[in-house]
């Protein structure tokens, strides 16, 4: 149970950073923290106590394997997360070139 709570705390850390930070790069970092807490959660739900890596050996039938599907899912999700983060950072750098600052309080052309 404790791992799930830690995972949730990590999620909240990310959310807190997202809400309170004023720097574009720190917002991106907070989003990444949230993202990885979700990935951790996905990996944890596939874990079975005393399970081993899911590489099937036909000689030994009594081995318990962990669930391989969440691992495959997380690998895909990490690649997607990489694309999102790269995109966010690219936009952040472009914003810096236009406004000469990373502070979101000064980047406020859009209202309403």
């Amino acid at each position, binding site marked *: 149970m404790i791992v799930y709570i830690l995972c949730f705390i990590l999620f909240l850390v990310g959310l807190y950073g*997202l809400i309170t930070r004023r720097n*574009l790069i720190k*917002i991106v970092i907070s*989003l990444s923290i*949230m*993202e990885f807490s*979700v990935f951790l*959660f*996905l990996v944890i*739900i596939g874990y079975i106590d005393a399970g081993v890596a899911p590489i099937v050996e036909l000689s030994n039938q009594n081995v318990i394997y962990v*669930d391989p*599907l*969440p691992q495959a*899912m997380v690998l*895909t*999700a990490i690649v*997607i997360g990489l*694309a*999102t983060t790269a*995109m*966010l950072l690219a*936009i*952040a750098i*472009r*914003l810096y070139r*236009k*406004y000469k600052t990373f502070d979101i309080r000064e*980047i*406020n*052309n*859009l209202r*309403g």
Partner: protein
Amino acid sequence: MNSLIPLFVIVPLATSFLIMILGKFINGFQKTITPLVLLFLTVLSFYCLLNNHSNSYTYAIGGWEPIDNIPIAIYFVMDGFSLILLCIISLIGFLASVYSISYIAKFTSENNFYSLLCLMITGMSGVVLSGDLFNLFVFLEISVISSYALVAFGTEKEELEASFKYQVLGGIASFIILFAIGLIYWRTKTLNIADISALFHSHETSTFDLFIQILLISGFGLKAAMMPFHAWLPDAHSSAPSPISAMLSGVLIKAVGIYVIIRLFFTMFIVSEEISLLITTLGTISMVIGVLLAIGQWDIKRLLAYHSISQMGYVVLSIGIGLVLLARGVKPTVATLAIAGGLFHMVNHAVFKGLLFLNAGAIEHRINTRNLKEMGGLSKHMPVTSGTSFIASMAISGIPPFNGFFSKLIIIIAAVQAKFYLVAFLAVFVSVITLASFLKFQRYAFYNKSEHRSTSKIKEVPFPMLFSMIVMGILCLAFSLLAFPGIREQILGPAIDVLTNPNQYVQTIIGI
């Protein structure tokens, strides 16, 4: 027809990469191939729609057969409901790409634009076809990541800011959705929608399921810009290049937001009355507040974006009424009517809101401003733009004989028959305010005398842009035909069957 299904994903995906590779060497390659490919997809999707006899067609990727009635492969499922979405995706995509031939010429790197457009269409087609939750998530990310890039395409201050905002909120939505998918996997140990549905229907609903449902409503509600989650939409939709605004407002929020909510809540979950009332309330709130926020806008594209929130509210509330009645198990005919109204309005909204954004783009193309106060007297110089935007404005405000009138009428009748009198009243009220708002748009943009500039030099926009606008204007009239019996059963009937009868969907996949 089963073997045609993967074409909807593979063809635009291949086009997207071909453009990046060959576009550098062959002059004008991107401009020719994108409309041709999307025209092919439009013809294909309408062919499937007209030959669909209320069946679900499935395609198992890799050809893996189910073992002991447990599906192993990732499925593509094409039924009446996803076909309607496929048709509007490829149709609006085709018209937007034709429009872009002239519109995008002023930007650099046209290759990137067309490539991202094709990628976005790949993602949306994948979302509506996917029969597997995680696969759905992957396609959703493909379409939204390309839309992030397209919103920032102008790379000016506003575009970049809007794109950043959109990405942060879209990112949060994606994590919430992924978290919900993880929870569903934890509970059911499967990701196939049909399989999950069978498991949920054989067990009792627990509070755990309720938590998953709330998470999914917030996640996809963020993508669909329902009311408490709408902050990104006006910025993103007004900053994008106009054909992309038409795609985002016309198709993307439906395909990745509303479609998934409808699909999951009708087919996958056993919905309780509370959740369906929540969905109805969210729809009603976004309908009312969206239109109230739209009144004060002077930027045409922001005005249209706020109206998108409001019109999506109509769709969601109508679907919600259908869900409430199905959950109570009373008045199945009224539930069918409400669902029909919602789907019909969704199709209509794609056409008229797409057309309005294309009109806004045409005005911006000629006089380089989006501020209503700086326009005026355009009807003499741009007769086609003026005429088509008049048709679209009348359609969105619900004036007969245009399509918006019939769908709103069906929604209001369904609300009255289901005894949701307040909702019905609000729907009429919002429709009146919408009319007022669009009369303002018409008057300031096309009929007032301009005080700021001489209008004599303004010409009508080039032919490709005119072509798209005229076709959409005709469609605004033609889609009214869907309201009549006979045609309605042919087009909307299979979709409603799929939604009201989830067992059929489950049977097609598990029972092969």
